[in-house]
């Protein structure tokens, strides 16, 4: 997983045209690990298929 996340960080930076300096990569990776861990906590919560987003556009 460790290598995969490094690969992902590098690929995502290239795809997004973000100028990821080598010196910044460890901190970016560490922050992404935290974010993905928190995202999993949210993902693990079961919601019905018809759950509505809080970000609703109203015309």
């Amino acid at each position, binding site marked *: 997983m460790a290598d995969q996340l490094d690969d992902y960080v590098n690929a995502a*930076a290239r795809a997004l045209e973000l100028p990821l300096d080598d010196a910044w990569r460890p901190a970016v990776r560490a922050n992404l690990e935290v*974010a993905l861990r928190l995202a999993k906590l949210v993902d693990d919560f079961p919601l019905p298929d018809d759950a509505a*987003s809080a970000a609703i556009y109203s015309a």
Partner: protein
Amino acid sequence: MSEAPASMSAGEIAQAVSNRKITAVAATEAALVRIAVHDKVLNAFTDVTADRARAKARAIDAEIAAGKSVGPLAGVPFAVKNLFDVEGLATRAGSKINRDLPASPRDATLIERMEAAGAVLVGALNMGEYAYDFTGENAHDGPSRNPHDPTRMAGGSSGGSGSAVGGALVPIALGSDTNGSIRVPSSFCGIFGLKPTYGRLSRARSFPFVASLDHLGPFARGVTDLALAYDVMQGPDTDDPACVARPLEPTMPLLAEGISGLRVAIAGGYFQQNLLPEAVEAVARVAKALGATRTVELPEAARARAAAFIITTTEGVALHLDRLRKRAGDFDPAVRDRLFAGAMIPAVHVDKAQKFRRWYRARVLELFQSVDVILAPATPCTAPKIGQATFTLDGVELPVRPNIGIHTQPISFIGLPVAAVPVPLEPMPIGVQIIAAPWREDIALRVAYALEQMGVANAPAPKGF
């Protein structure tokens, strides 16, 4: 004075100015002197708008001399976090990059409303870069410092606001709160802060961070001043699409109604974890004073904090993506690295976080059918040392920067109104959140006022400089 001493509240200054016991010019000059003397230590101000302030003060004095009525904040000096547009200044929002923006052509709506009530803008205040911060530290302007111990954090991201009011440089400041940035500096600096309901106060002509979470609100050294400022800033504004078209709901006339009949509960579970003893003590003191013995559980609060984190970092990077591509080296490194990571979070997680948000909001609103007020800590601890990287909560060493706001994030995530009240523990104060149902700022302020009258909550005199 006649001068306006630092101990005068905004309400006292306005009354003295209106009654011609002091002039608005004198009140303004007194604030400018305090800033000149003490901001060398506190580093709360990034801009002092002395010429503008003197002109405004002279205009107020002229109106009074002409027998015209002046507003409820006549001659009251105030300052704003530097993400508010101030006519003639580039809105830096704590950044290096934004200093290259052209000068703002017009003040933010809330500044206009404060000045329409007679208040006098004296400057713009330091803040964490682009409001992505809980510490009050700033890589470009240096840290805002805590008025009770300048070696400690002011809290962020409205660090200058907390420092300026906590240090009694000005009686009122304005700030923003996306995940806790009014409540955290209030707690660390020992002052009162109000994060209103999401959509209550206009954000027009302020620099955004996370549009679906951003709130603006006031800081003060007492509840009456907080209510004075909040009341004059209310009202719809078509320049902010999130600002609601509710009628004005003044809170000042209700402050002294007392707490009789209010159902007060203590937030349990998540909100009783990850606390140092001082935070536990502060909540206990407030709960005892209010006679609160019941505990309620905000369901899935840890997930709410996680979802707020995901929405914050992804909406935040969407705002800054172009700046990151072109000027990544000009960001505060701590902000840049988090935003880079935010750009890499798959959209599926954001969608889930927004759906969870609606679920969580519905469950928490159910609680308010049986309670009127929920008490929770504002911060896990008193102000850490500037530069402190870690602290130990529940036996686990954690990074300070992202964890200061763990008790504020699940509340602002669904836009609930909160009055942060300072409990004057020694050697450092700490805040407690008084949380009410949406649009019930009046209840949060009534409880805060009662606590102030009982002496349980008050803003201690600055002693650090």
